[in-house]
């Protein structure tokens, strides 16, 4: 690493670039490796998967796995649960976080610091550490095997992050822009909807994608409170294949890729905001 920083004579600049490029691409290969293996396995035939030693690339590219999987697994059901639950939780988060973030970003009020501390602390809580309490509560409210249980839990645990990132976006918008709208007779809500939200769009998109992905990938809560396949999301549904007598790896990975590809694309879209967003709560 030291060599990367050393200022070297011009002649060696190309050598440094070659080292950098090789290291960079090696890193990419390492971090893509398990997903490349997923892709390769998902298009192997059943017999090829169980050959010893294993093949690097499929001898017969069995793309039909991606069609048969819909008949072999209740994949459509899992997918529907994942989409409904993640979208509902995300919309609920934005509906509640936007006004809270806006108010906190714009006003000084009594209890503001207490509220911010509550948000900062709950941002650090994870559903995993509270699973026993959540489980007991869900039973008490008769929400076992419902989508509502997941929607509420996912919304609650992502609320803090969205409030943080949105309030820093709102606070950075000059108040004069809003005041101009008020003078033109707009109410505070109208100004928020028509002036502020469009300006804060990158923040909204980041909060949306972040919450969506975190709900989409959640595992422990869904594993614990959803025992009927009709209410299980992709993470739990696919994982249940591992316990079976003969694991159908090709279907397991085809299903996993169907779950992974969309969120990777979404995440890549907010790459720019990733870190500023993640540290927004702590650094601001």
């Amino acid at each position, binding site marked *: 690493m030291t060599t990367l920083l050393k200022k070297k004579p011009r002649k060696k600049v190309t050598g440094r670039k070659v080292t950098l490029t090789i290291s960079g691409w090696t890193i990419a290969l390492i971090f893509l490796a398990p997903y490349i293996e997923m892709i390769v396995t998902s298009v192997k035939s059943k017999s090829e998967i169980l050959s010893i030693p294993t093949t690097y690339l499929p001898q017969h590219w069995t793309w039909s796995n991606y069609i048969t999987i819909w008949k072999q697994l209740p994949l459509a059901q899992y997918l529907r649960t994942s989409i409904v639950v993640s979208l509902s939780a995300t919309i609920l988060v934005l509906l509640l976080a936007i006004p809270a973030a806006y108010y906190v970003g714009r006003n000084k009020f009594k209890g503001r610091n207490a509220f911010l501390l509550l948000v900062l602390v709950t941002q650090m809580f994870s559903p995993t550490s509270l699973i026993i309490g959540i489980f007991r509560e869900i039973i008490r409210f008769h929400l076992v095997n419902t989508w509502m249980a997941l929607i509420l839990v996912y919304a609650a645990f992502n609320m803090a992050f969205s409030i943080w990132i949105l309030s820093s976006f709102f606070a950075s918008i000059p108040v004069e822009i809003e005041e101009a709208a008020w003078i033109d007779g707009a109410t505070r809500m109208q100004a928020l909807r028509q002036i502020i939200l469009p300006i804060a769009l990158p923040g909204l998109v980041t909060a949306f994608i972040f919450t969506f992905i975190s709900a989409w990938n959640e595992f422990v809560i869904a594993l614990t409170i959803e025992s009927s396949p009709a209410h299980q999301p992709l993470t739990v549904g696919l994982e249940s294949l591992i316990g079976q007598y003969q694991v159908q790896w090709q279907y397991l990975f085809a299903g996993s890729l169907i779950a992974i590809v969309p969120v990777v694309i979404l995440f890549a879209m907010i*790459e720019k905001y990733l870190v500023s967003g993640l540290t927004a709560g702590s650094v601001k």
Partner: protein
Amino acid sequence: MTTVRKRYRVGALPWIGPAMAVIFLMVLYPAFEMVKTSFMSIDATGTSHGFTGLSNYRTLFRNPNLTAVLERTVIWTISIVVLTVLISLPVAQILHAKFPGRRFVRYALIVPWAASVVMTSTSWLWILNGYYGVLNRILLSLGLIQDQKQFLGSQTQSFTWLIIVAIFVSVPFTTYVVLAGLTTIGEDILEASTVDGASGWQRYKSIIFPLLRPALLIGMVINLINVFNSFPIIWVMTTGGPGYSTDTTTTLAYKISFRNADIAQSASMATINFGIILIFIVLFLKVSRWRDDS
């Protein structure tokens, strides 16, 4: 600001109330419920038989697996957090420099971060498979091993691989945190130090690293909490087994309640875990305040 407050003097509650209600209902209430459960007697059917004081904690401390699990949790948390940082620092340095395809490499690093940890762990489980796994094939081809290895065969090996996979999923986030830190340092500072004639390592140690420290500390505390809470990797790859030999306190708490159906004893384990996380959070608050002061 004052005009704002004069014209629209509505209380804060309508704005922040609904968000707070959801946090109270689904985050703080379960925390309270969990701590309460740890002091109650609850049978396997979930029926409560009132408070029993510290009896669940006593049962937990008599659990023969507890000491080993506690030791393992410490090794798990510390080794993953430290190794993740040690790997992320040079990786971020590489991704900060310019080279052909840098954008692609950055996107590649995002994949394990965005993808479900359950699914990533499943792929590792398959790669490490003792009969059909591709790692066996690669090592055989390279002549590094003579016959197929059961990578998840023994306790030590399994646990080592669990740690490797956990590092694999933690490095992308940490690298991006360091990368953000590097971006804020600015070229002028770096150039000024080059003019002063500092060597590469000197520059890194005395200029770059100290400037990275605040971002790094925050990243580390976030990792600390995530790694301590980590569940899917262990659950998918070994289920904490064989026996309890690869469990951490997080998976142990889960097993006690959902396999042994002793939710009250499990709640006492989870309450202890939660207490440890609260300590991490205080640490986090200190670290971020420290940043504000500097």
